């Protein structure tokens, strides 16, 4: 199962992208998603694809990792883009039946929607594969700091977030172990009708919840035993460091934005 889950994983290569500040990567990813909604023709999508491919190239991570990340959602994307193709009214219509109409504009639109999904996923995977989850939490904490004045408990939120992130792999391991144990007792998680498949989750979820509560209590006890007093004013083991490369990357995204704005229809 772990082999198949690409989203949320981190691959410890050493590359230009890996070394970037997590804040830069988070901003760049959000920026990318904003820009892609301005792209509306094949040329602009081509530019967007180039950006991702450049990023993948710089990250040293093999492309098949990214393709594996898209795979679980592939049919959802295909379904959505087919809907787009069928229901987009166009000028050059090839086929029409009731509300269904297939037109040149519809087909282009469908393809673009599909590309948009794939590119956004690629970009997000690029961020998570090259950034440790805890570093991303640091970045989110940094961006939340201004809201402290409004009474937002930023330190506590950051702690909750990082505990959450920290236990994702643990829970995955746990889930895998429980699935193994139930499969060893003849359970087939992929078998049966939809209702049966949902019922099949009970032998997985009940022990998983049970263990999670145990773990939460253990963790709270361990933190209290170490006299944890809340997160305000604590220093950090790893400080975030903004470098010239981070400014450069964000600067390039601004340029990409201008390019896309000029090339769009």
């Amino acid at each position, binding site marked *: 199962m*772990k*082999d198949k889950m690409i989203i949320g994983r981190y*691959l*410890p*290569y050493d590359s230009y992208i890996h070394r970037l500040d997590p804040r830069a990567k988070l901003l760049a990813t959000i920026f990318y998603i904003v820009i892609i909604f301005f792209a509306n023709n094949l040329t602009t999508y081509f530019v967007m694809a180039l950006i991702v491919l450049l990023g993948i190239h710089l990250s040293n991570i*093999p492309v*098949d*990792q990214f393709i594996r990340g898209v795979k679980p959602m592939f049919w959802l994307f295909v379904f959505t883009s087919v809907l787009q193709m069928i229901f987009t009214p166009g000028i050059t219509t090839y086929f029409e039946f009731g509300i269904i109409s297939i037109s040149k504009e519809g087909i282009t639109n469908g393809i673009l929607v599909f590309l948009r999904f794939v590119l956004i996923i690629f970009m997000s995977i690029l961020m998570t594969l090259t950034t440790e989850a805890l570093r991303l939490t640091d970045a989110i904490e940094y961006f939340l700091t201004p809201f402290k004045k409004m009474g937002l408990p930023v330190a506590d939120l950051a702690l909750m977030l990082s505990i959450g992130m920290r236990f994702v792999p643990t829970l995955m391991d*746990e889930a895998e*172990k*429980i699935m*193994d*144990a*139930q*499969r*060893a*007792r*003849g*359970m*087939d998680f*992929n078998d049966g009708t939809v209702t049966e498949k949902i019922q099949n989750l*009970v*032998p*997985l979820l*009940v*022990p998983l919840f*049970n*263990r999670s509560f145990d773990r939460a209590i253990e963790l709270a006890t361990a933190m209290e035993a170490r006299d944890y007093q809340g997160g305000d004013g604590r220093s950090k083991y790893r400080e975030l460091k903004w470098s010239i490369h981070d400014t450069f990357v964000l600067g390039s995204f601004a340029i990409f934005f201008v390019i896309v704005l000029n090339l769009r229809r």
Partner: protein
Amino acid sequence: MDIQFKNVSYTYEAGTPIQHTALNNLNLTIKPHKFTAIIGKTGSGKSTLVQHLNALLKPTEGVVRIGNRSITPTTGNTQLKALRKMVGTVFQFPEAQLFGQTIAEDIMFGPKNYGVKPDEALAIAERTLKMVGLDASYLERSPFDLSGGQQRRVAIAGVLALEPEILVLDEPTAGLDPKGQHELMQLFSRLNTEMGTTIILVTHQMEQVAEYADDVIVMEEGTVAKQASPREIFSDSDILANNYLNVPRTVAFSNELAKAYGWNLSDMPLTTDDLAVDLMRYFKAKKEARYEG
């Protein structure tokens, strides 16, 4: 039904920088109706080996043969369910797999997955619960109200309910008190001698190996370093030292006796009873030698 591994390799996360080879061109045979112990230090591939025994993992290379079934890297998942009925597996801390609202429901889960009718499954549940030392009054209780040791027993009953021909146990007594450990080991031993169940036990406790095992497999870096009888393994000091393995208490005791007083016992005492007999024999021989001299 014997078990055969032929040139089996298994790699985790193949093709990524964190890839890790857990089994490396492994060859072994486990004989039917025997009690086989698997030992080795942490990370030697014991648990990965165990997961191959009921095809939870398929080898990345090589063939695993269990009875007349072969598991290769390309074996389809649909053929594996029947295999898992023959090979029951008790994982580390099996109490983590409990989910039923009642103990009966939990134990009946396995048999029901193999199409056993509810009333028949209930009878099996009652029978296996008795085997692990809990009476029928527990059937309607929630497994989450039990103590850790009792939960362990219920979880083991849930595996025994499949009535497997081969029972794989991955450190089944870890974290139990000495009495609980002894009772469980006695249960596994009875299954082996009375019902002829093949037992495969992964353990760090050499006393268990000495007392119960017919055959021992020492794992080292994903391959078999040595497969022999406990007696042979515990007299091979190289293998023991290389794998950070101890000898059982009784063997250590007799070694100390030999070192401190020069008392050389005739046999290697694998259990406390053996040690008593050996010591008696030693004193008797000494006495006779004195009278004769």
